[in-house]
């Protein structure tokens, strides 16, 4: 089925072809991934990480990602928060050194709760950075990005093939599901034991297809003159025609270095000053005041 011109199928969804992200070179988008998903490591202050989350959502909107694709993460947001706060409640650590707070009939300890909140916001900031990347990039964008970074051909080839095969297995999965349905399997009516059995039913054809595909692809690689070393038979280096073809424009240099520069500055400031520490957070301070903790 020929797909329409209007949509690009990314790793996690579908994004219109005129999404502004496509104006950037794939390597610039890798810089987005790196900076968005690593910077929060250096930031404790929740309001800054919340701002990063807001900015990421702004980028989702600006990049015209279909927001309904993000719905599948809703449950995760809740369960992870529940988990972290329950752990902080049940296993707060050495209570003697902690500040007890009585809230709606429960005795909580403030420091672990505060830390859970800070970590949770940081985690979400990092996660949505990665989700943004996989929502707006196709397999080939990842590949061009990796090749531009001069990764050895074998590495980028394996990366490309594995991402592509993930896509193929997703499609296989969908077809296998249809085939199961065609054989009278009613998912809604299954017990847990039957669902487990169903997993086998999925894996057998999935691996059958994978094994055949491995044979076919390796025969095709041999036929096209590929060797394990990746070196041409005449000796010398493999040409990288495509990498040389995709051009980094001024905009890419500016944005990439802007992003990386910001990252470096934040990392240094974080290590040398207390600007990004919890102590500097007005939000935390405000809550502490509210709870009457000094």
């Amino acid at each position: 089925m020929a797909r329409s011109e209007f949509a690009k199928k990314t790793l996690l969804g579908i994004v219109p072809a005129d999404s502004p992200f496509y104006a950037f070179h794939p390597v610039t988008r890798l810089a987005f991934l790196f900076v968005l998903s690593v910077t929060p490591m250096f930031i404790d202050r929740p309001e800054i990480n919340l701002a990063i989350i807001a900015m990421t959502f702004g980028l989702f909107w600006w990049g015209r990602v279909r927001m309904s694709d993000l719905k599948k993460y809703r449950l995760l947001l809740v369960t992870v928060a529940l988990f972290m706060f329950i752990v902080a409640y049940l296993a707060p650590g050495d209570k003697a050194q902690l500040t007890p707070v009585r809230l709606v009939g429960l005795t909580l300890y403030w420091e672990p709760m505060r830390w859970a909140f800070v970590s949770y916001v940081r985690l979400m900031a990092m996660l949505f950075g990665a989700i943004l990347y996989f929502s707006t990039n196709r397999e080939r964008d990842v590949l061009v990005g990796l090749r531009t970074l001069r990764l050895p051909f074998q590495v980028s080839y394996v990366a490309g093939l594995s991402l592509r095969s993930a896509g193929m297995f997703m499609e296989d999965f969908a077809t296998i599901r249809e085939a199961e349905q065609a054989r009278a399997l009613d998912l809604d009516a299954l017990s847990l034991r039957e669902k487990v059995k169903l997993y086998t039913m999925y894996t057998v054809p999935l691996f059958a297809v994978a094994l055949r595909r491995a044979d076919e692809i390796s025969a095709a690689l041999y036929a096209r003159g590929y060797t394990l070393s990746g070196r041409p038979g005449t000796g010398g280096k493999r040409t990288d025609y495509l990498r040389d073809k995709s051009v980094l424009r001024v905009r890419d240099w500016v944005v990439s270095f802007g992003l990386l520069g910001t990252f470096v500055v934040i990392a240094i400031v974080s290590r040398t000053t207390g600007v990004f520490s919890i102590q500097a957070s007005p939000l935390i301070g405000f809550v502490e005041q509210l709870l009457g903790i000094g």
Partner: protein
Amino acid sequence: MSLLEVNDLTFQYEDGTSALRGIDFTVEEGEFIALIGQNGSGKTTFAKSLAGLLRPTTGRVVVDGIDTARKGVIKELVRRIGYVFQNPDHQLFNNNVYDEIAYGPTNLGIDDPERDEIVREAAAAAGVREALFTEHPFFLTKGLRQRIAIASTLAMRPKAIIVDEPTTGQDYRQSAEIMTFLTRLWRDEGHTIIIVTHEMPIVAAYAQRVVALCEGRILLDGTTRDVFARPDELRRTFVKPPQVTRLAQAWGDPGIASDVITVEELVDGAVSSIVGRSSASPAGISGGTDPASARGPGRKGQ
């Protein structure tokens, strides 16, 4: 009531591609239909919609009184319409051939003496020998895996069977075997058969009705002879009639029908035309009207 009723069916993929754009279609019980059209014309999407595997974006597909969009009708549907996928690897889930064929009946809640009988019957019908029952389907040839897939579908005893590209990658003998087998199901057991195919000689030799799809719409729908006799419209679906039909049409000989679809028909036409025009020629009379040659291989009775 018709077996299949399709009203104004449209189907749109998640990314917004329209695969089907308003199809009205009916199938009566006992038909043998070939769905043709070029890659991307929507054949497979249409066929899967008929089997209830894809839910219409708009419009309705009703199989023997059951709307496929309703929830919880899977078990009802598979007893009425079976679907055999193009790639057998996608539909073989079990570790041995017997379990594979028994899989559908098990899901339908059929238990053993009856299930065993059904499995053996379906295997026999599809030409799967019982000696193969303990084999792992993965290691069998593609033709055999295809037949196991068909047997597995038959085991649910549907009234209609849709087979997606039954002969792709098979040689003449294997194609003929599968097609003869489908023909037997159709003629002797009253099954309705729908095949999706690119192979015009197969269509010509076996199908009774041809439906040509083009860009998500039905372009031609009629008896096989009628459809192949309309080369201009067929060209729009990029489908060519069989070579003998093209020859008959190109020759334009009044003694030869322009809707022949087998070698034998054209040979007979040519012979009688030659004999008719030059009754003086002794050579022409000698081998001219041998009635035995009117049979085609695998051609159904007229």
